[in-house]
């Protein structure tokens, strides 16, 4: 009889310092980034490549009278100048958006926002292309602009989309969800009702790498290779096939290293299409890279929601119902990237983390003379706005009831035993233990001590604020039956090949913009197969190299592709079992798995590692009937539900009473993203998201003047936070695995961006309580905070 100590040690189990599977390991992609060896879009140089530049409209609203390109074409280095009229001939002047609208690739009739694409110059070098823009003579007939969404539906408002037949106003949609009658009834009988307008101003994802493309159309074999800064290469391939009429198998999209996406790189911008047109026209590769101002002024913005909120409660603090009407500014074209049938995306999760009797929301979307988009920006399709609304409303209620905001939240959370929890707007939350996260956050912050310190400081006239926010995220779309982008169901593929020597390549459909996919997905395979992560190559970003899938946004990589990778690894493991059985001349059912190895039940010294099995699979072992000679597998994972990460955030601010300057002194973030694959990467994601939150809460806004000029066209005007504005983040976690996800993971990419703005604003408003302030809108700049202290808080839009 075999005794246990005969069993060989299991190196595949790894240890805490060098985990083979989940754990804290350094990112595999970092050596190239820290050495400056990343390969970004603008690093791509192809033989004979031309360069390009886009002429953009200087005004927000104007009829296009004429374009004269004669002088530009006379420039010795200019190869081509393309205008809207040229595109009309190619049937490419208008392209479909991700929200069933169309967007002008180049202006044909009318300019609809400042910075809109008017003409495209292709030249021998980038300098000549830029210089030639000044040689194009455009005549505009300037029209009155509409930049105030509140005036968009006025009878005398200029109609922006007058090219659509029969359109006489700027209304894009009216949409509602929840039971209005039931909600109104709860409100009518509630002890306490509080109302507050809550504005989430227009902000920009502002990735440090701007958008760009290199198009290489091979006229001989008809193949288009398009290098793009895209978060969704496969979806782009299909869209290009549909829009440009190039057969899909003749399109290869390559997304190289991406310098930040945040949702900015989901959509298809006119520049991408123009680069393709330029390459087809010139017969040479064409590079287009936008500059900072172009990125800020013309690419996908985020938010721009004016939310009227009502909250109903009993007098002892039981929240009963929430009601909201939203005025949503979508800009000149409805180009929101979101995968639902609902034009407000996932906004219907505005019921938050609370067990409500009723909820209702209605959203009106309008056109304005502003850049189109309304894409993620780390918002999971409008969850950011939803969480901000509910978390502000709960704080407004706490003040009205004179209750501690943490206590009010604790009193109203959905209880662990209520999961799976169906909320009033149709979501089924998978799992949660909200109270545990809230209590941990309060413990890490020293909540009671902070309140005592605050009371002492108030005595001395010092302004200290403590902000509490709790969020429930909804991420990881599909399931495909409910979620799609232009008809493409939201599922993702994974392919895994284990080479004869036991090294593996996993190919995935999602594309990293800095999230650490090459590490995280290797760790998932490592956990499932017991191969060290460094022996697993993760291939992504090239549609000729990877299986189909919808891409990285809405925190969906781990919930969807993470599931796909776990399942494909399990498929390989099961196949390895069959091959091991053949190698060991044992029935597979007599084999047992330990990390990295199949062994004979009852005789653990007899077994085969994954590497041995891989060699066996490719070797001369007689394989069982129906088993191919490889150790490869592929899957497409269609998630049965979304996942619902959550977190409890506490922020401490100090406000200078003389100047209104806000200093974020402390920030405690407790996150629950289910199973944690690489805690270091999770913390990095949280740190980044929290920093984003500081930006939005304190400084970021895209403003327009009355003439329609965008006032945020550079980093001199559009402020993003630096290390100087953020504290040392204090993070903590709880683990509540997703019950339906193959490894219980929920996604973390956007949690902190969603959860931090309400925590910070709640802290600022709390600091200003001695002045009677119950609400102020972002951004909490010194001037706006000071105005609130004077009783003159105003919405920013």
């Amino acid at each position, binding site marked *: 009889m075999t005794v246990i100590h005969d069993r060989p040690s299991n190196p595949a189990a790894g240890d805490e310092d060098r985990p083979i599977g989940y754990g804290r390991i350094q990112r595999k992609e970092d050596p190239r980034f820290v050495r400056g060896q990343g390969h970004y879009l*603008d690093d791509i140089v192809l033989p004979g490549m031309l360069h390009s530049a886009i002429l953009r409209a200087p005004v927000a609203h104007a009829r296009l009278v004429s374009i004269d390109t004669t002088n530009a074409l006379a420039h010795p280095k200019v190869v081509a100048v393309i205008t809207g009229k040229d595109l009309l001939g190619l049937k490419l002047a208008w392209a479909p958006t991700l929200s069933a609208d169309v967007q002008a690739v180049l202006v044909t009739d009318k300019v609809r926002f400042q910075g809109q694409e008017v003409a495209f110059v292709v030249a021998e070098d*980038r*300098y000549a292309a*830029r*210089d030639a823009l*000044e040689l194009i003579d455009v005549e505009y007939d300037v029209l009155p602009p509409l930049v105030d969404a509140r005036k968009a539906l006025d009878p005398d408002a200029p109609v922006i989309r007058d090219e659509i037949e029969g359109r006489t106003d700027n209304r894009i949609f009216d949409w509602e969800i929840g039971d209005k009658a039931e909600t109104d009834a709860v409100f009518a009988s509630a002890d306490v009702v509080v109302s507050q307008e809550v504005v989430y101003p227009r902000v920009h994802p502002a990735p440090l790498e701007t958008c760009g493309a290199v198009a290489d159309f091979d006229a001989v074999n008809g193949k288009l290779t398009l290098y793009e800064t895209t978060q969704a290469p496969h979806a782009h391939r299909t869209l290009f096939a549909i829009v440009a009429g190039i057969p899909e198998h003749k399109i290869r999209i390559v997304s190289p290293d991406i310098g930040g996406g945040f949702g900015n790189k989901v959509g298809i911008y006119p520049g991408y299409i123009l680069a393709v047109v330029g390459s087809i026209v010139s017969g040479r590769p064409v590079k287009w*890279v936008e*500059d*900072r*101002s172009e990125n800020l002024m013309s690419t996908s913005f985020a938010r721009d929601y004016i939310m009227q909120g009502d909250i109903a409660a009993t007098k002892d603090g039981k929240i009963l119902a929430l009601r909201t009407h939203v005025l949503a500014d979508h800009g000149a074209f409805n180009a929101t990237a979101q995968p639902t049938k609902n034009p407000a995306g996932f906004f219907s999760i505005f019921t938050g983390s609370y067990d409500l009797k009723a909820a209702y929301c209605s959203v009106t979307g309008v056109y304005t003379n502003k850049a189109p988009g309304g894409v993620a920006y780390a918002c999971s399709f409008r969850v950011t706005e939803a969480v901000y609304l509910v978390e502000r409303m709960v704080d407004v209620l706490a003040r009205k009831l004179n209750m501690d905001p943490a206590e009010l939240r604790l009193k109203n959370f959905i209880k662990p035993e209520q999961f799976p929890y169906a909320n009033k707007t149709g979501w089924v939350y998978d799992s949660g233990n909200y109270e545990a996260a809230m209590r941990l956050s309060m413990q890490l912050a020293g909540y009671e001590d902070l309140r005592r310190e605050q009371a002492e400081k108030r005595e001395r006239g010092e302004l200290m604020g403590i902000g509490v926010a709790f969020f429930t995220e909804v991420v990881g779309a599909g399931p495909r039956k409910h979620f799609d982008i232009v008809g493409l169901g939201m599922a993702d593929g994974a392919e895994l090949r284990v080479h004869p020597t036991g090294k593996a390549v996993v190919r995935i459909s999602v594309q990293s913009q800095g999230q650490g996919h090459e590490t995280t997905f290797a760790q998932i395979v490592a956990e499932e197969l017991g191969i060290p992560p460094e022996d697993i190559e993760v291939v992504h970003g090239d549609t000729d190299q990877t299986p189909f899938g919808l891409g990285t946004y809405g925190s969906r990589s781990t919930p969807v592709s993470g599931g796909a990778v776990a399942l494909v690894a399990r498929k390989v493991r099961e196949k390895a079992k069959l091959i091991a059985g053949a190698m060991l001349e044992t029935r597979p059912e007599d084999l047992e798995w330990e990390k990295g190895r199949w062994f004979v039940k009852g005789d653990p010294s007899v077994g085969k590692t994954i590497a041995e099995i891989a060699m066996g699979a490719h070797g001369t072992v007689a394989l069982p009937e129906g088993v191919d000679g490889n150790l490869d597998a592929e899957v497409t994972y269609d998630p049965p539900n979304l996942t619902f990460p959550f977190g409890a955030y506490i922020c401490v601010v100090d406000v200078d009473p*003389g*100047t*209104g*300057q806000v200093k974020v002194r402390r920030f405690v973030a407790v996150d629950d993203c289910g199973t944690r694959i690489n805690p270091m990467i999770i913390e990095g994601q949280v740190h980044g998201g929290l920093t984003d939150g500081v930006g939005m809460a*304190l*400084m970021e806004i895209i*403003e327009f003047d009355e003439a329609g000029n965008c*006032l945020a066209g*550079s980093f*001199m*005007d559009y*402020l993003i*936070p*630096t290390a*100087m*504005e953020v504290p040392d983040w204090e993070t903590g976690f709880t683990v509540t695995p997703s019950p339906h996800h193959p490894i219980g993971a929920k996604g973390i990419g956007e949690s902190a961006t969603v959860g931090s703005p309400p925590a910070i604003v709640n802290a600022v408003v709390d600091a200003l309580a001695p002045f009677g302030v119950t609400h102020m809108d972002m951004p909490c*700049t*010194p*001037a706006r905070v*000071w*105005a609130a202290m004077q009783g003159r808080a105003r919405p920013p839009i």
Partner: protein
Amino acid sequence: MQIPAPFDYVRATSVDNALELLARYGPESRVVAGGHSLLPMMKLRLSRPEWLIDINDLYELDFILRDGNKLRVGALTRHTTLLESDEVAALFPIVRDAELVIADPVVRNRGTIGGSLCQADPAEDLSTVCDVLAAEAVIRGPRGERILSMSEFHRGPYETAVGQDELLCELRFGIRPRTGSAYEKVERRVGDWAVGAAGAAVTLAADGTVDDAAVGLTALGLDHLVADAAAVLRGRRPDEELFAQAGRLAAAACDPVADQRGPVDYKRHLADELTQRVLRRACARAAQMQEG
């Protein structure tokens, strides 16, 4: 990448050479030192010089020298050098106060005091610092050298007395005993332009009363010193009431414009608040110097 309009570039080898080049290339030439104001404006094509005359090799203009009762600072002295100079901090603590809040280390490593003054951005900090310290500007040109007071040097936003064919070479600061100075700025974010800022220098008499004082404002629509404030302070013993009085005068003297950084009322409030703060600190420093 933002691309400026086409231009030519030449590197000066000496002050004389720089002056020759300025004369040769005329009104469409610009001197570049640190370049952190000029180059962004060129990239946005708001500024379109035909020639850039690079003076970064003019090491003769990069110095901090004590010369009797004057401190002489070369126009090509980098912000970082000023920030790190203990001698400057001891004599004129306002300089370190200001340098700490000028942009970020990357900009401070390149940007120069001469460039800052000649750019004359209304939100530029060192102009106020030089005003309250009553600095002198040493300018050279084809007609030789001239020395101007700050009130002669400033000509309003983006304009100075330095002629197209001239070069600002040096700033001179008078060293006075029992003098303290301070600077404070409010910005929306580190590295942003000032919403508003104030600087003050105070010289105390032996009896502890104010012998001389200067208050200046940045980005608040006042090109010169707050003259009334100095008049009120002189001969008085510094206390909170006096600071408050000076603050009110600064608020009345300023003429800010509303922009994304804030409305007029807030900026006017800052003139008041920050004036009080810098006076409080400058007086404390002056008293400390007196004791020391």
